[in-house]
Every structure is written in structure tokens, then in C-alpha cells.
């Protein structure tokens, strides 16, 4: 284990950036530090100079117009893309050269913009796949049904139901994931991501396609998840009521560049942000 960097109050943040970490997290080391992160696709710079620090129990928002590079940032963080430049420190550890599954085991879990559940599997099995990295028994004790298998499967079953109960979905455990209504599929994706025991949860447009009352419920649940699991959550969202309502730090991307960072009030009154969204005032 590499030595963890200590994040100190009053000192310079390792990255030249305005820190938007909430007060309560200042005495703890940040969960995520991106410095000079960037990726090029051929000649196109999709993301550049992405410098962001996320506190240990922060709810951070990543917003920006379509095509700004928000999902690309998530893909960089989860190593779906290997960055061209810069470093990502997760809990002080460099994720350089790691594969997506290794990064997941290090503590980053995510959901997808377009839902990507394992549709032919049951709801419970979807969650259990998330628990996969915590179950430990050999293939043979699985086939031969040795006591170790039963113990671990029982624990996994209980854990899966417990996680599903966050969204009151325990009754749906035996349904096929693909047969669930849209909103329930979105919630199941969050449960599946939580099952991997993350310290940083990335939500890619969790409220997409939800009506205002579902969005309000989702907001409560996101805060509840943060409070219960004491994890950091970073979300991409176009629904401004959600972003402004629960995000403590917001980062605005446009054309792959960070154009503003700050709290909800700061972002709302920032002229550059308004210009990026609405165009220049005549």
C-alpha cells in the first residue's frame, strides 16, 4: 500500500483548484483527486485539465451541455478509457494501469446513462453479481455444495435483500431484471453498484426519464445512501432541481474543460456557466 496523502485544512490542495469539499470532510483525506486529467481521441481533445477533488462523504455534481465530456470523465475514472494525461488518486492510491474490474475492487462503482442491467438474470442475481468481489469460495465447493458455499450464499442472499430494501425492492428479488419498469431498473442499477461496496459511487444521469415526484424520491434516496454508507457520490445530471438540491460541490464542463467549480449558488450566478448553457447575451 502506498502512503496515503494527508489532506490538510488551510494548506494548498495538491491540485491548483478551488476546493469544494464540504466542511465535515476537510479533516479527512479526499476520496478522489484528479489532477491534469485528460484524454485525446485521435486529434480531438475530449477532456483536458480535469482537476477535481471529492471529499469522503461529498455529493458532487458534474454538469454541462450535451457532449461536454461528462460521461468521458466517468469512463476515465472507471478506466473504461485509459487517460492520455494526468493522474487519478482514489483514496490516495494511483489507479494508473488498472483495469475496470480492478478499479471497481479499489472502490469505484457506477451506473450507466443507458441502463445496462443483466436483463436475463433475476433482480437478486444482478445484485449478487455486484457482491461477486466479496464472495470467496472455489468452483468445486460451488458444484459440490460444500458448507462454505452454503454459508457464503446465505450471507449473499441476505445482503442482497438488505440492499434491495433501500429502495423497497426486496419483493421484486425473483423477477427478471429486464421485465422491471423503467424506474425500478434505474434503482436496481444503483443497488447493483452499491453491492460492490464502493467508497465512491458514480451515477450517470440517475434521474433521466423520471417524473418530478420520482426525482424527488430519488434525491432523498441519494442522500440516504450517502448517510447510511458514508460514501462519496458523484453524479452527472441534467435535472437542475436535483443537482442544485443535493450536490454540495458542482463542477461544470464545457468542451472537455472545467469552466466553473463551486456550490450551487456560485454556479447559478456564474456568467460563464450561463453563457455555456444559454449562449452569449446580445
Amino acid at each position, binding site marked *: 500500500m502506498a502512503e496515503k496523502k494527508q489532506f490538510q485544512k488551510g494548506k494548498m490542495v495538491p491540485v491548483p483548484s478551488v476546493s469544494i469539499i464540504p466542511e465535515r470532510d476537510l479533516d479527512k483525506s479526499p476520496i478522489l483527486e484528479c489532477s491534469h486529467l485528460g484524454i485525446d481521441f485521435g486529434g480531438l481533445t475530449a477532456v483536458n485539465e480535469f482537476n477535481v477533488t471529492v471529499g469522503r462523504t461529498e455529493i458532487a455534481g458534474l454538469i454541462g451541455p450535451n457532449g461536454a465530456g461528462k460521461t468521458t470523465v466517468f469512463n476515465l475514472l472507471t478506466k473504461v478509457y485509459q487517460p492520455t494525461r494526468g493522474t487519478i488518486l482514489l483514496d490516495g492510491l494511483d489507479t494508473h494501469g488498472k483495469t475496470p474490474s480492478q478499479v471497481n475492487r479499489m472502490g469505484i462503482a457506477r451506473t450507466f446513462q443507458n441502463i445496462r442491467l*443483466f436483463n436475463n438474470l433475476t433482480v437478486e442475481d444482478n445484485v449478487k453479481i455486484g457482491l461477486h468481489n466479496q464472495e470467496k469460495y472455489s468452483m468445486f465447493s460451488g458444484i459440490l455444495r460444500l458448507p462454505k458455499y452454503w454459508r457464503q450464499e446465505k450471507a449473499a442472499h441476505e445482503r442482497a435483500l438488505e440492499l434491495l430494501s433501500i429502495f423497497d425492492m426486496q419483493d421484486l428479488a425473483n423477477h427478471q431484471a429486464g421485465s422491471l419498469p423503467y424506474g425500478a431498473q434505474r434503482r436496481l442499477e444503483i443497488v447493483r453498484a452499491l453491492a460492490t461496496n464502493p467508497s465512491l459511487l458514480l451515477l450517470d444521469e440517475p434521474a433521466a426519464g423520471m417524473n418530478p415526484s420520482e426525482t424527488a424520491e430519488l434525491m432523498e434516496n441519494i442522500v440516504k445512501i450517502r448517510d447510511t454508507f458514508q460514501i462519496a457520490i458523484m453524479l452527472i445530471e441534467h435535472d437542475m432541481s436535483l443537482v442544485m438540491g443535493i450536490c454540495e460541490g458542482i463542477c461544470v464542463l464545457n468542451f472537455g474543460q472545467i469552466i466553473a467549480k463551486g456550490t450551487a449558488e456560485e454556479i447559478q450566478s456564474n456568467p460563464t456557466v450561463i453563457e455555456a448553457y444559454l449562449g452569449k447575451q446580445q
Partner: protein
Amino acid sequence: MSFLNNVITGVSLGSIYAIIALGYTMVYGIAKMLNFAHGDVIMVGAYVCFFAMGSFNLPPVAGVLLAVAVCTVLGITIERLAYKPLRSAPSLAVLITAIGVSYLLQNSAQLLWGADTKTFRPLVEGSLVLVPGQLSISYVAVLSIVCCVVVMIALTLFTGQTKMGKAMRACSEDKAAAQLMGIDVNATISMTFAIGSALAAVAGALMCSAYPVLSPTTGSMPGIRAFTAAVFGGIGSIPGALLGGILLGVIETFAKAYISTDLSDAVVFAVLIIVLLVRPAGLMGKYVPEKV
């Protein structure tokens, strides 16, 4: 009585096809590729078993276990060296590579063990007489059917309820999402090749016990028939491989008995074409329309 005899022969031959078809279907389901070298892994398994029993006088069980071990390693090696570098290549490139690996294995076998056919000593000899003079089942047939049943039950339990099995099903649906849920996709694919190749070794020993001629091309025809069985039953589906294998074995035996030995393959493939016209995804396969 000859009808019953044909059914028994057909089912036992079909059981062997089913075991081979599992290798095709699992690899296709998870790695989304057609491993045309699978038939030649059967041949390698049969040779290893042949030499273990013939030259080293090992008991049949030890011979089969040795063949399983060698083929498992062979399967993983083929995947690592030939297919893994092509993971993101177009599927045509992988297909051609698989055909290349198939010829590599055949020619290596010819170089190592010669092109002459060898007579395989059956794993078990004799037969179970049910009606003296009329109806009997060879022990090889019994063994084939038993092996097939055991393998099916073990695989169903494995893929349905164990951690690795669930990882396999997750990979077959969405590799990228599985990876982001902490599943090591490369390890899962290696595991699939290992299981498929181990089964191929068992099938090789069984097949050469039933039809005791062994040459470097022994694996290719049963390989293609088993691939047909996998498509017949619905490629990617484990119960489909069982159903397809058994049906194919029975149809082939009946065609040989009642139509013509020479035409048996033509009949088998004609049935396949008709089934695919009616059910394009195979008997147990799910037809998933592309979303637009």
C-alpha cells in the same frame, strides 16, 4: 428391437455430441466467437488418452484425467495466445484465426504422432444384455449417457448458482458492465475455455471408445456436427446444446439405419436448415430483435 437399438445408439452418440456442443455454446455465449479449433482439442484429448493407456499402461480413468488436464491447459493456452489479442478485433478475424488454430493442431498432431490411423482401446468393454440376442447396450454407450447427464447437472448448478457461473452469465450479457461490477472478464473467458476443453477431452475419449479409429483429423467431423447441434439447439444455451446434441445423434443414426449411410450427413444438415428456417435462433435460443 432394431428400432430400440437405434434409439440407444442415437442417444449415446447424441450424448457425446452434446458434451462437445457445450464447448461451442459456452464459448460462443461468453466470448461471442466460434471456436472452430474445438473439434481438434477433442482429437488431442483422444491421443493423450490413447498414449496414456497404450504406452504407459495407465488405467482408463487415469488416462481420461490426464487428457482432461492436458486439454484444459491447451484450451487456456490457445485462448491466451490466439484469441485474447483479438478481443476487440472484428469477428471475422477471430473466426479465421480459429480455423488457423484448427489446422495448426491437426498438423502438429500429424507431425508428432504420424498420419496413420490408430486403433483406440475402448475405456470399457463389453455390453449390457437386456434381451439376449436382440437388445443390448454397450458399456461405452451407458458411460456416454451417464457422463452427459452428470456434466449437464454439474454445469446447470455451476452456471445457475455459483459465483463464477453468475459472472459467466453476466459476461455473456454485457462484458463492459460486468467488468465495472468487478468481474475479471479475461479470467472468466479463460475459465470458459478451460471448462469447454476439459469436456472436449472427455468427449474425445468417449467418442474414440465408441468408434475406435484415431487419426489427426478424427476431431474435425464430430466437431462440425457438434457445432451444428449447438446451433440446432440454440447457440449460447446449455439445455439447447443437450437437446440439439441428442436430436442430432438420433437423427443421424436413424438416417443411417433407414435411409442411407452415405446420405446421413445430408439428412442431418437438411433438418438443420429446416429448423433454422422456422426458428432462426435454434430450438431453445431466444430470438432478440435488434432495437432501433
